[in-house]
């Protein structure tokens, strides 16, 4: 009897893991929202949001101590302002997760910028990898 129950427990464990694999909980644990989701969902302006996407190539620049760039998920875009220095390896074309509040002009006033890199690893073609060039 005990064995049968244990077997049933194992079965349910496997089954529920299968449910998770099939995507049942995919939207549940989300570290950041995408720019598309940011624009499509009604937002509570009193709350900070965490938005993640690719830094659009050519958009990263620093003006008088304020870092500006545009995050994109391929469809929607959101402009980001950040007064501070980024400690990670922020470069164009790689990902970033930005936490802050939406300003009245639709741009995100960032409180923190965290770099999210891809799972791809390639040897350098240019003599200096971005790690040595680092953020502007």
């Amino acid at each position, binding site marked *: 009897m005990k064995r049968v129950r244990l077997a049933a427990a194992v079965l349910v*464990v496997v089954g529920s*893991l299968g449910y*998770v*694999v099939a*995507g049942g*909980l*995919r939207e*549940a*644990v*989300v*570290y*950041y929202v995408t720019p598309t989701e940011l624009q499509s969902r009604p937002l509570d302006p009193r709350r900070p949001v965490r938005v*993640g996407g690719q830094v659009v190539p050519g958009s990263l620049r620093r003006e008088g101590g304020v870092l500006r760039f545009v995050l994109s998920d391929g469809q929607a875009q959101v402009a980001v302002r950040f007064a501070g220095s*980024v*400690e*990670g*390896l*922020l*470069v164009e074309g*790689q990902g970033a*997760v930005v936490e802050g509040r939406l300003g009245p002009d639709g741009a995100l006033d960032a409180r*923190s*910028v*965290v*770099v*999210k*890199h*891809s*799972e*791809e*690893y*390639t*040897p*350098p*073609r*240019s003599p200096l*990898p*971005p*790690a*040595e060039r680092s953020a502007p």
Partner: protein
Amino acid sequence: MRPFAVGATAALLSVGLFLALWVSPPDSYQGEYVRILYVHVPAALAAYGAAAVACGASALYLWRRDLRWDFVGRAGAELAALFSGLTLLTGMLWGKPVWGVWWAWDARLVTTAVLFLLYVGCLLVRDLADDPERGRRLSAAVAVLAFLDVPVVHYSVVWFRTLHQGPSISLQGVKLAPEFLLPLAVNTLAYLALLGVLLAERARLASLEVER
């Protein structure tokens, strides 16, 4: 047999270290930081392996009540705590320069921390139980329970949207250039060999201590 296994593991570890620190090129994006990959990923895989051994041996102990399974289960739980702790530490030392933060509250990081805590709890339960037999039984139960977290840790980056990047090597393909693949493979092998040697030695020590 034993000197051979230890010698082979030491050789593998030194070759792995050489490949990781001298042979591997820097990454086109991360630069030299990519070398942390060769200790972080093998440590995580060794933690999974130790957790699996702990779970299997504990289940067998609960079923058969053979002390030898308990020795292996205890070794597995200790090494699972050790290697998951190492994974967390090297991950933090990697995250700070590359992501810009030591820690982030994302699913991969939190589930790994939970794994570490569960095995610490497993070891504490064994040491603090009134009598050794009860300690063995209870920690075996916790070890079985804790293993449930391993698939969640591994697939958290696939199932959930996390800051941590997805797997570089999966059924969908290898996103790792061959220059990085070889050191990673050798280091993974070396860590698994190290895990095997440490498991065997720890279990042997436990049996010696009981005999005494």
